[in-house]
C-alpha cells in the first residue's frame, strides 16, 4: 500500500518530465539492446560451430602419415598400409569401424570437359561410417574391390562440375587419369565438412585406386570410428598402441604417424568464438554502465528539485527509509522500463541481422533474464546514492529550500 504510493509518485514524477525520462532511459535501452544483440550473435556463431562438429561425425578419428615438420622438412615420415588398418580393425577395442583411404587430386574427364577433383580410394564402409546417403544408383562392394573393378561413386556436386544433372551422370563413363570408370552411384549433398568439400569428391574401391590409379599399396589416411561406450581419447590410446606395435617403434621414439581428432579443430574455433562473444558482450555492458551513470545524474537532479517535497513528506511522518525507497523505486522504474524496451530493441536487431545479413543469431531467454537483472542492478546501484542523499536531508533545511 505504501509501496503502491511509491510507484504512483515515481510514475507521476517521470510523467511530469517525460522527455527527460526518455533520454535517461535511452542509455539503458541502448545498453540492454546491445548486450542482447551481441550475446545473440555470439550464441548464433556458437551454434553454427556446434552444427559443423555434428556434421563431421563427432566420433571419427583420423590417422595420417607423417611425423613432424622440422625446418620445412618432414621428419620421421612413415607409411600406413592396409595391414595397419586390418590390425586396428582386429585389435582395437575402442574402435568400431576402420576406413582406409588413399586419395589425391586427379584430372577427371567427362565428354570434352576436364576437372581437377579429389579422388578417394576407400573401402565401401566409408559411406555407412560417415552416414552419407545415396541419391541415385548403388554403392560399390568389397567384391568390386577384390576384382579391382573400374567403378566410381561420386559426390552430389560432381554433376554440376560437368554441366549435367545427376540423372545424366549415372551410368556414364568418366576418365580418371585417362582410365575409364563407370559412375554407379551418386551421393546426396553433404556440404563442407571441415576443410574438405565432400560433394566434389569421387570414390572408388581402395584396391582399384591403389593398383590402377595411384600405383602404390600405401594409404594416406585411416579413419577410425570410436565404438559406442568409448571416448575419443580411449580410441586415440588404442590406435597409438597398435600402430606403434605394427610400425615397431621403440619406446622413447616419436610416432611416425599422426592421430587427429577432427573436432579439436572446431573446439579451438569454438573457444575463439566464445572469447569473441564475451568481448562483444563486455563492450556492450560498458554502455549499460554509462546508461546507469545517466540515471544517477538525473536522479541527483530530481532529488535537488524535490528537496522541498522531501521536507514536506518528512514533516508529515515519512521516515528516512520511506524517502530512500521512494527515490530508489523511481530509479528502478526508469531502469526496468528502459530494460524492457532494450530487450525488445535487441531482439528486433538480432532478428533483423539474422534475416538481412544471414548471420545466425539466437536470442536466448537466459540472455534476456540476465540483461533484465543487470538493468535492475544498475538501477539499484546508481539509484542508491541519490536516494540516500534525499533520505538524509534534514527536514527543516529541506522545508526551507528554495
Amino acid at each position, binding site marked *: *500500500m*505504501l509501496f*503502491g*504510493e511509491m510507484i504512483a509518485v515515481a510514475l*507521476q514524477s517521470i510523467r*511530469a518530465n517525460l522527455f527527460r525520462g526518455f533520454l535517461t532511459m535511452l542509455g539503458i535501452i541502448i545498453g540492454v539492446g546491445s548486450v542482447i544483440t551481441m550475446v545473440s550473435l555470439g550464441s548464433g556463431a556458437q551454434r553454427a560451430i556446434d552444427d559443423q562438429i555434428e556434421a563431421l561425425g563427432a566420433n571419427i578419428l583420423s590417422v595420417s602419415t607423417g611425423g613432424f615438420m622440422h625446418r620445412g622438412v618432414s621428419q620421421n615420415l612413415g607409411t600406413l598400409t592396409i595391414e595397419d588398418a586390418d590390425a586396428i580393425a582386429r585389435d582395437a577395442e575402442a574402435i568400431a569401424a576402420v576406413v582406409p583411404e588413399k586419395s589425391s587430386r586427379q584430372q577427371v574427364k567427362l565428354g570434352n570437359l576436364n576437372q581437377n577433383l579429389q579422388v578417394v580410394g576407400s573401402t565401401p564402409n566409408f559411406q555407412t561410417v560417415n552416414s552419407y546417403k545415396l541419391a541415385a544408383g548403388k554403392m560399390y562392394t568389397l567384391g568390386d574391390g577384390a576384382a579391382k573393378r573400374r567403378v566410381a561413386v561420386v559426390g552430389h556436386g560432381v554433376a554440376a562440375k560437368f554441366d549435367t544433372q545427376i540423372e545424366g551422370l549415372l551410368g556414364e563413363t568418366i576418365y580418371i587419369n585417362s582410365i575409364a570408370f563407370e559412375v554407379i552411384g551418386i551421393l546426396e549433398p553433404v556440404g563442407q565438412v571441415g576443410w574438405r568439400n565432400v560433394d566434389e569428391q569421387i570414390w572408388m574401391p581402395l584396391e582399384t585406386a591403389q593398383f590402377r590409379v595411384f600405383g602404390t599399396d600405401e594409404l594416406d589416411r585411416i579413419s577410425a570410428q570410436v565404438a559406442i561406450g568409448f571416448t575419443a581419447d580411449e580410441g586415440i590410446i588404442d590406435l597409438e598402441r597398435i600402430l606403434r606395435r605394427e610400425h615397431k617403434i621403440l619406446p622413447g621414439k616419436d610416432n611416425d604417424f599422426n592421430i587427429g581428432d577432427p573436432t579439436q579443430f572446431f573446439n579451438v574455433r569454438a573457444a575463439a568464438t566464445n572469447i569473441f562473444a564475451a568481448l562483444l558482450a563486455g563492450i556492450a555492458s560498458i554502455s549499460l554502465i554509462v546508461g546507469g551513470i545517466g540515471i544517477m545524474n538525473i536522479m541527483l537532479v530530481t532529488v535537488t528539485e524535490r528537496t*522541498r*517535497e522531501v*521536507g*514536506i*513528506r*518528512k*514533516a*508529515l*511522518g*515519512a*521516515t*528516512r*527509509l*520511506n524517502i530512500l525507497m521512494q527515490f530508489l523505486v523511481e530509479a528502478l522504474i526508469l531502469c526496468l522500463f528502459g530494460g524492457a524496451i532494450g530487450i525488445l530493441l535487441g531482439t528486433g536487431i538480432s532478428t533483423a541481422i539474422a534475416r538481412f545479413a544471414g548471420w545466425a543469431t539466437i536470442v536466448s531467454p537466459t540472455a534476456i533474464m540476465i540483461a533484465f537483472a543487470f538493468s535492475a542492478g544498475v538501477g539499484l546501484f546508481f539509484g542508491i546514492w541519490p536516494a540516500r542523499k534525499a533520505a538524509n536531508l534534514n*527536514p*527543516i533545511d529541506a*522545508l526551507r529550500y528554495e
Partner: protein
Amino acid sequence: MEATALNPDMAQAADGVIVTRELRRRYQMGDTIINALDGVSLQIQPGEYVAIMGPSGSGKSTLMNVIGCLDSPDDGEYWLNDKLVSNLKDHELARIRNQEIGFVFQTFNLLQRATALHNVEVPLIYSGISRKERQRRALEALEQVSLSERKHHQPSELSGGQRQRVAVARALVTRPSILLADEPTGNLDSQTADEIMALFDQLHRAGNTIILVTHDAKIGEHAERVLRMLDGQIESDTRNVPRQ
C-alpha cells in the same frame, strides 16, 4: 497572570501535553555561535491555545521546530505526552511527527502535483492506513474545513485561503495531540487571514491543542496564552482576557 515556569524536580510528574526543561539549541553562523534556544522551560496543557511571539531571531521558530520534532535540542529535555522525545532516533521522530503533530506552514507546503484530497491523505499513507479508510478520513477532514467540494483540485487551482485550509485539514487528519502553526496567515490577505483564524478558534473550541507562532499581535490576540521570546529565552508568559 500565572507563571508556568517549571520546577525542574517536577518535570516527569508534571502534567501537560508538552513539558520542556532547559532546552538549548545552538547554531554556528560563520564564526559566531547563535543561541537560538537558551534554556527554555515551559509546560502546555491539553486544549490550550498558545501563541509564541517575538521579533525575528528571537528563537520562536526554533522552539516550534523542536516542539514539532523537526529539530532536536542540543541540551535539555522535551516530554511529549509523558514521553521523552529529545533524544529519539529518526524513525521514532518520524512516527511522532506523523501521529502526534499536525503542521500548518506559512507557505502551505502542499504537494503541487497532487489533488487536495491526496494532499490530506499523505500523513495517513505514512501511518499505513488502507486506501479506503484513508480517503474516507481525508474527505472528513476536508469537510471540517468546508472544502470537500474542491477535493479534486490541485493547489495551483485553489486560492491562498483554500490552500491553507487544505493544509489545516492535512494537519488534522491524523487527530494529532497538538496543532503547530508557523505564521499561518503570513501569506494571506487580511480578510482570508480572518477566515483562517476563525477556523483555528473553532478548532480550539472543539478541544484541539494549538500552538501558533506569529509576530503579528492581532493574530496573537486569538490565543488564550502568549509566550513572548527574546534572545532564545521566554521573556514573558501571559494570559489574554477571554474574548467575547
